[in-house]
């Protein structure tokens, strides 16, 4: 039988990291409902994926608030998801050595992906030709 995760069940009251984690799942979850679902609609419904091209991003990122939006989505989803992965590892990996190894890997990966995503969003400067008209890609 599967074990119930430490993040599940009654509200933790002990203080400390597990309590923080429990509230963080819920607070970031509420924000992600809007951030993630609006993002999905914008990128897959009102614009077809084929048209989410470099040119599309170039136009969109003229507005700094879209960069902020995307950075919030990146940060909250990554921390929420990687924290979830931490809970899953705690649940299933019983061997202490392996657990320490995998949790360290999750920590390092979180940092690496956060840096890659942040650098991409902050440093993006479109080549000039990209601002002349939107274009869709074909395959």
């Amino acid at each position: 039988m599967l074990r119930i995760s430490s993040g599940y069940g009654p509200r933790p009251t002990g203080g400390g990291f597990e309590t923080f984690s429990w509230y963080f799942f819920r607070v970031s979850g509420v924000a992600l409902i809007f951030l993630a679902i609006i993002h999905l609609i914008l990128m897959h419904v009102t614009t077809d994926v084929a048209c989410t091209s470099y040119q599309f991003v170039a136009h969109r990122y003229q507005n700094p608030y879209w960069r902020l939006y995307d950075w919030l989505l990146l940060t909250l989803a990554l921390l929420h998801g990687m924290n979830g992965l931490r809970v899953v590892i705690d649940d299933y990996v019983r061997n202490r050595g392996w657990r320490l190894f995998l949790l360290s890997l999750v920590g390092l990966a979180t940092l690496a992906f956060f840096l890659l995503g942040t650098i991409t969003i902050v440093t993006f400067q479109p080549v000039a030709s990209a601002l002349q008209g939107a274009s869709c890609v074909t395959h």
Partner: protein
Amino acid sequence: MWSWLLHRVTGLAVLLFLLVHIVDIGLLSFGPDVYNEGIALFSTGIVRVISLGLIASVLYHAFNGVRIILIDFWPRGARYQGIMFAVVMIITILCFLPMAYFVVAPIFQPGTSAVALPM
């Protein structure tokens, strides 16, 4: 139990996609040609069908997340958790169907698919 297992599996699936997505967005730094080649991959039929799984996962995980939060904070949440699970499934399906249509339709009508709305 099943709702919990599904919540865990969909959460991990969306996380896996997020990691891939951070890398493909990273291609922006290498200019239009490199980036658009990556996007072309996302608009192939196979990847469109796979992305239906992503959309269904996000929708279920989001709505079931609301259910978890209601069970935690609404005094009568635990009593209605079964009904709320049914509601989560119905809302997930109702949101999924129209979104799936827009994602899959371009496979059958290449060229006419989409209008890019620069924002």
